[in-house]
């Protein structure tokens, strides 16, 4: 890895409640394109920051400028997590994408804008591409395939917290679901989850819309000396290929850094990502 670090700007886009925190990492050397990063859900955003920062640096060193936006109510952006809903996040992606387009026009840059999503960020990216009818190269790291079981897993964080404090779970998940159904906001792991956001997440699923004609590269981590894609991801990729999409999947060794209480890394995800990016540059 080069010892020369890319230039990085921190800034806010928008004002008042529309203020979003952005990190923009400038490409080094010959510019190849831009990357729009779509971050994971709730605590996974925080736990993945170190790994994402290292990958961003590696991509920038190969000529890719990377925009990371903290979506509404996340990270250093305006608002509380409970203010966020799926549609507001889709609108944030619109703004980030438009900002990158303007940046490219201003600097006369060619090359694609690649989507790079992590975990449930892939669900959001999938919704966004479908709703906007867009098609662009897509790098999906450890994508969550279905929103509903992922929501269940998120709600179970409350169960885990209750076990640690009282060793009695009762029926906490049923209570949380009932509250969401009544339109209430529930608190899970320090995050206020609105009924609107839970609904958007629950009904989402990783899919490529019919007009999607760009390449997709899925990268997963797995344990063991010979890492393999998870059966669910393999099946998903086979189905997408049969539908005529250009998809590849790569399994790498590494830790599940997005869920780890300690700062963990999966550096092996970077090299195959760079290979995919090189193939997408003009």
């Amino acid at each position, binding site marked *: 890895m080069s010892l020369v670090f890319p230039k990085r700007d921190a800034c806010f886009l928008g004002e008042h409640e529309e203020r979003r925190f952005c990190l923009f990492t400038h490409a080094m050397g010959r510019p190849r394109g831009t990357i729009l990063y779509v971050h994971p859900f709730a605590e996974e955003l925080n736990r993945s920051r170190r790994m994402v920062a290292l990958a961003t640096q590696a991509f920038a060193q190969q000529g890719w400028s990377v925009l990371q936006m903290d979506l509404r109510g996340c990270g250093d952006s305006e608002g509380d997590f409970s203010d966020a809903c799926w549609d507001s996040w889709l609108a944030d992606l619109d703004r980030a994408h438009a900002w990158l387009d303007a940046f490219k026009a201003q600097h006369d840059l060619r090359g694609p804008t690649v989507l790079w999503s992590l975990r449930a960020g892939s669900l959001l990216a999938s919704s966004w591409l479908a709703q906007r009818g867009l098609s662009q190269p897509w790098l999906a790291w450890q994508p969550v395939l279905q929103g509903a079981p992922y929501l269940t897993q998120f709600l*179970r964080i409350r*169960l*885990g917290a209750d*076990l*640690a404090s009282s*060793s009695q*779970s009762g029926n906490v998940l049923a209570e949380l679901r009932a509250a969401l159904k009544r339109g209430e906001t529930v608190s899970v792991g320090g995050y206020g989850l609105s009924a609107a956001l839970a609904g958007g997440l629950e009904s989402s699923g990783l899919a490529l819309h019919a007009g999607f004609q760009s390449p997709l590269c899925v990268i997963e981590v797995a344990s063991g000396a010979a890492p393999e894609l998870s059966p669910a991801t393999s099946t998903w990729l086979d189905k997408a290929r049969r539908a005529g999409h250009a998809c590849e999947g790569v399994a790498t060794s590494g830790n599940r850094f997005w*869920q*780890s209480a*300690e700062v963990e890394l999966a550096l092996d995800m970077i090299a195959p990502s760079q290979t995919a990016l090189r193939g997408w540059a003009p």
Partner: protein
Amino acid sequence: MGSTLSTHLRHVLTLLDDSLSLNGQSASFDRDTPLLGALPELDSMAVATLLTAMEETFGIAIGDDEIDGSVFATVGSLADFIEQKLA
């Protein structure tokens, strides 16, 4: 019976190691190794992750009313829980 249990135990150790990024630390665990409250990596998010991983790996559905602190007390209690689910 004994071999079935040890198979479940091995699976549980692999799941713990992968889900909690223990980096092989679980190799030194046995049935009596305490988990909840003793293993710092097992925070509330890890419990949620582990439940999902158990469902996916063993093809079972776990109801929340089935879960209390005793399930996650030790490696052995977790393995026993899975054995009972699969029975």
